[in-house]
């Protein structure tokens, strides 16, 4: 009997809420997405280029860090060679860059670009300084 009374009370509260509602237009809740970190690891040959595509979900800054360049995967193989680093949009089988710079490996982001939602790419390319293939790692933090 007690449980029946509780169900009846709940039903009446729900009905009262429905009747007392105002004529407001439903709104879509905004969702804030935290930054996404992506790792772009590949090799770069003399006179070569390599790129990586990523998707920006909402407007915000994208940080691009050339974190590592090495002549092999061994820990002592780091090199300070200067390579090209750029951001842009994928086009065909390449990356059409809109902003480029010269970079050496560092743990700070030399490229910070404000981006609207869409598909973008990071391109790493030889500036003529490479005499052999190198390994590199780029950290991309985007919204």
């Amino acid at each position, binding site marked *: 009997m007690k449980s029946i009374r509780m169900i009846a009370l709940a039903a009446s509260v729900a009905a009262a809420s429905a009747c007392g509602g105002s004529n407001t237009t439903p709104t879509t809740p905004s969702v804030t997405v935290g930054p996404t*970190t992506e790792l772009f690891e590949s090799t770069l040959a003399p006179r070569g280029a390599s790129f990586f595509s990523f998707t920006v979900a909402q407007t915000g800054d994208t940080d691009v860090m050339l*974190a*590592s360049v*090495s002549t092999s995967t061994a*820990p002592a193989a780091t090199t300070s060679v200067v390579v090209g680093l750029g951001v842009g949009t994928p086009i065909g089988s390449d990356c059409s860059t809109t902003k480029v710079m010269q970079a050496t490996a560092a*743990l*700070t*982001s030399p490229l910070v670009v404000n981006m609207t939602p869409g598909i973008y790419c990071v391109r790493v390319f030889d500036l003529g300084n490479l005499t052999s293939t190198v*390994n590199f790692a780029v950290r991309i933090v985007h919204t």
Partner: protein
Amino acid sequence: MAPGGVLFHQFVASAAGAVNITLTATDPAATLVGLGIGIPGGNVGSCDLTKSVQTRPGSAAQLSVLVDAGTFCAGTFDVGGLGTKGVLVTYSVAHP
């Protein structure tokens, strides 16, 4: 650390700033080892190194770099001179 081995660990910098890495001790004493910093990745030891040096233990930082906020890795590696018993290393990483 075994001969030919690496010893890296990850840490999180909560803000941009300087990271100072100090190889404070080795056993056997005064052993020459590699000291490096980078980001977690696919290279040996799961750490893609940005900068490395060869050094012996001391009280001052042997490796200092500026970093953005984020996750990084640092540690030591054999540069080729370790005996069959390896080496016990002690290092510190001071970061934001």
